[in-house]
């Protein structure tokens, strides 16, 4: 029995449960006169069966998914220190307001005069994000950070196209998230990697060597994935602008900047906001998030449609932006996520947002300090919201970064982001966020220090880890070699 000896209950796949004829639904009595279905939709258009669907009772469904939920660690359960993911506390009140009928049951094609509350919320959210980031205009349409990147690069392409040609290359540092090169490539650009300096940062002089008339843009994350503020960002932007190229600033780490520095002031032409990170919307086991983009005036004509416009009688959507790149998804964006982010901004206010950034940076530096005796810092440069260690100090023992991550699970913590950024050997990338208390940080640091001691005294325990989780280490090679991607009736 799976899990039997691990102290939690086993649970098969839902399709392996149930019995023919059992149901978990109810429909109200049919209030119409009788009709012949086959007259309306002929039999030959209809499928024979839906054999793949389960036949289970409502109680069985609740128990099934309740058991599954217990096999997850989550940000609500424990510290979830995934670097660059900003797993902060997700306020419960936001789950309540998003379910208000006027939001949850609002049809996207309702006439604008029946959606004024929603439109006002969206307009104010655009304003808040522009104010926080120092950008001139915002589109809330992109569904996720990666789609925000894609949108931003489409804007840049449209801008250059308007000036004669789209250009050919996009510069991206090696420490960037993989979505950066993937998004640039999706827009037809050749990706050129710019090397990170020995201090973990880009040097303006180094970037300058790569800039020419074929460069459309630089994509740069600030603070970067090492948690370091790009100190020469203003000079780097100037180097790009001098050649007519633009700067895409990846806003994934905006949680380190609120009230401290605005991307708009750094010279960024476009940024994306990851509302599921900085603005606390739940990560949902991998989405839905939201990835709005903010732009400077020069790029505003290209923003996705429809856009909100203010008229005498109120807000309305307008498609009348002939230079727009079009649309990246249906309707207006992940509205439910936008409502949550807006509620968060209201609750925090300018004072709370600024404090969030300051405490996030304090927490990361505190962990960095407590761990630096036992683990090798990738770079000695002071960090902002996250700290990155390498596998240097334990490499010789045969213990791998992966082993440390798995052992942390036994201590009751989720693991940091590992093996990223790629520029650090065996990276351990830790982002505690501002919502963790000093006591929790101390417990987490104590766990990592205890593991460092285990590496010296009893490395075998790391290689067997995790020992306390519902399953032990899983065979990923087998999963990839012989893909089983769905349940099938035996």
């Amino acid at each position, binding site marked *: 029995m799976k899990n039997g000896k691990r102290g939690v209950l086993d649970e098969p796949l839902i399709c392996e449960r149930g019995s023919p004829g059992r149901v978990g*639904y109810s429909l109200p009595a*049919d209030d119409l006169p009788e009709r012949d279905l086959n007259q*309306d939709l002929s039999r030959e258009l209809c*499928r024979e*069966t839906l054999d*793949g*669907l389960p036949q*289970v009772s*409502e109680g069985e469904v609740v128990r099934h*998914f309740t058991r599954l*939920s217990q*096999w997850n*660690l989550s940000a*609500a*359960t424990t510290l979830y220190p995934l670097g660059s993911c900003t797993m902060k506390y997700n306020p419960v009140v936001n789950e309540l307001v998003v379910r208000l*009928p006027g939001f949850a049951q*609002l*049809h*996207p094609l*309702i006439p604008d005069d*029946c959606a004024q509350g929603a439109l*006002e*919320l969206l307009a104010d959210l655009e304003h*808040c994000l522009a*104010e926080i980031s*120092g950008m001139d205009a915002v589109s809330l349409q992109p569904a*996720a950070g990666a789609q925000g990147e894609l949108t931003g690069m489409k804007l840049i392409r449209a801008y250059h196209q308007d000036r004669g040609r789209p250009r050919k290359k996009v510069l991206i540092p090696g420490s960037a998230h*993989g979505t950066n090169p993937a998004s640039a*490539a999706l827009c037809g650009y050749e990706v050129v990697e710019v090397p990170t300096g020995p201090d973990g940062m880009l040097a303006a002089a180094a970037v300058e060597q790569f800039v020419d008339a074929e460069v459309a843009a630089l994509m740069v994350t600030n603070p970067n994935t090492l948690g370091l503020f790009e100190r020469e960002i203003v000079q780097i932007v100037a180097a790009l602008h001098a050649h007519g190229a633009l700067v895409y600033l990846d806003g994934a780490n905006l949680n380190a900047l609120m009230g401290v*520095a605005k991307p708009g002031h750094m010279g960024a032409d476009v940024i994306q906001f990851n509302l599921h990170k900085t603005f606390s919307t739940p990560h949902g086991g991998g*989405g*839905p998030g939201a990835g709005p983009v903010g732009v400077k005036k020069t790029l505003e004509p290209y923003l996705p449609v429809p856009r909100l416009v203010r008229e005498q009688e109120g807000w309305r959507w307008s498609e009348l932006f002939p230079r727009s790149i*079009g*649309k*990246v998804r*249906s*309707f207006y964006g992940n509205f439910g*996520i936008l409502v949550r982010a807006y*509620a968060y*901004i*209201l*609750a*925090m206010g300018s004072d*709370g947002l600024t404090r969030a950034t300051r*405490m996030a*940076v*304090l*927490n990361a530096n505190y962990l960095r*300090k*407590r761990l630096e005796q036992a683990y090798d810092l990738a770079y000695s440069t002071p960090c902002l919201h996250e700290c990155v260690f390498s596998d240097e100090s334990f490499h010789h023992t045969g213990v791998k970064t992966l082993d440390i991550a*798995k052992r942390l*699970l036994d201590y009751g913590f989720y*693991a940091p982001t590992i093996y990223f950024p790629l520029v650090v050997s065996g990276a351990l990338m830790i982002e505690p966020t*501002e919502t963790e*208390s000093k006591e929790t940080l101390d417990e987490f640091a104590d766990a990592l220090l205890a593991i460092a001691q285990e590496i010296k005294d009893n490395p075998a325990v790391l290689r067997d880890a995790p020992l306390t989780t519902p399953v032990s280490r899983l065979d990923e090679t087998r*999963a*990839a070699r012989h*893909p089983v*991607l*769905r349940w099938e009736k035996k």
Partner: protein
Amino acid sequence: MRYIPHTDHDIAAMLATLGVGSMDDLFAQVPEELRARAAIDLPPGKAESEVRGHLTALAEANPVSPGLLTFLGGGAYSHFVPVVVDQIIQRAEFATAYTPYQPEVSQGTLQAIFEFQSLVADLLGLDVANASMYDGASGTAEAVLMARRIVPQRPTVLLARSLHPQYRQVVRTYLDGVPGVRIIELPWGADGQIDAAVLEQSLDDSVSCLVVGYPNFFGVVEDVARLSDTAHRGGALLVTATTEAIAFGLLKSPGELGADIAVAEGQSLGIPLSYGGPGVGLFACRNRFLRNMPGRLVGETVDHEGRRGFVLTLATREQHIRRERATSNICTNHGLCALAATVFLCLMGKQGLRELAERNVKKSHYARDLLLQISGCRERFTAPFFNEFVVAVPDARGVGQRLKEQHIVAGLVLEEWYPELKDCLLLCVTELHTRVEIERLVKELRMKSEE
């Protein structure tokens, strides 16, 4: 601030550990000229009760059922959502986890996605489904990009003009910048299905794929079997895009009819309208195209002791490994919405989804029959439909305006999206509409169209 635990004492103790004099010292890396201008000009923070009050006022400015009776579809649908769905997705263990990078403590998310993949593959009648896309529209664009990867030497994409206008718009935006690509839109015939003669003429060896709505934007059920024959004869792939997933409860699956890639918006499966998002993109294909698929995949495996478990797999297609050579830039899925769809499908089950689909057919056809009895109302298309249909009404826009004064949104005025469809309304009727509501619509529409 209630979300941030630090006391003055904590801060002092932590700064002492750091050996740093003040909080500002932690930001020494940030140039002074940036810090000096960074203050945020927004109101101060609000108490929970104030946040609730403010958002309640905004929500109440949007009239919804029962105050407003709507017959809108067009890519977003009102359906019954069992209360269990929302209860499960609010469990913090699901809602506040992230992408399951550590599978040993993410088996809940992983098994649920594996179940989602199984159910979606079955509904769409194809071999394999991914862990979901953002929505139906971007999923359709990804399907077109995928088709182009499979047959890269073929630059032309055929889009049915009856495909959801926003889906077409998203495909165009995604394809802009892809060198050499050409998009051709195919008209519909008198019955509302794709014009077969024009399709035949347009299909040459430059065509990578044909994309067709199933049902299409007008609710019309396309003859997918014939379209796939035609497409395959020309060496092209057939992509179907479905906006109303409840239709799969009754209609033959796209895979059964020969589609190579099937995409759908899954919002109808237990996800609220929420002004158009978030929903969830369903995405399935034939096994032989697996390596070209975008998005996350969960696979079954075993742990060291031989117990069944689940992991993210085939990641070598993805951006975090392949970077600029990845199959897509997508990095997550719409996990929590995929979970909602999974719970919904489990509750409805084999019998319930069918019954639900049948109820939609019955209610919508009942409404259509009554509407056509109104003098001046005509059926615009003759082909079979699922739960949406187009009715020609003289002065559709004016009638719509006058009905709104009676708190009824009768449907979508199609002229805004299709200038050639003047005076046409697209109506959607689902299981949620009662007979009384349908008859009220008919009565009011009769009165307003005779005014």
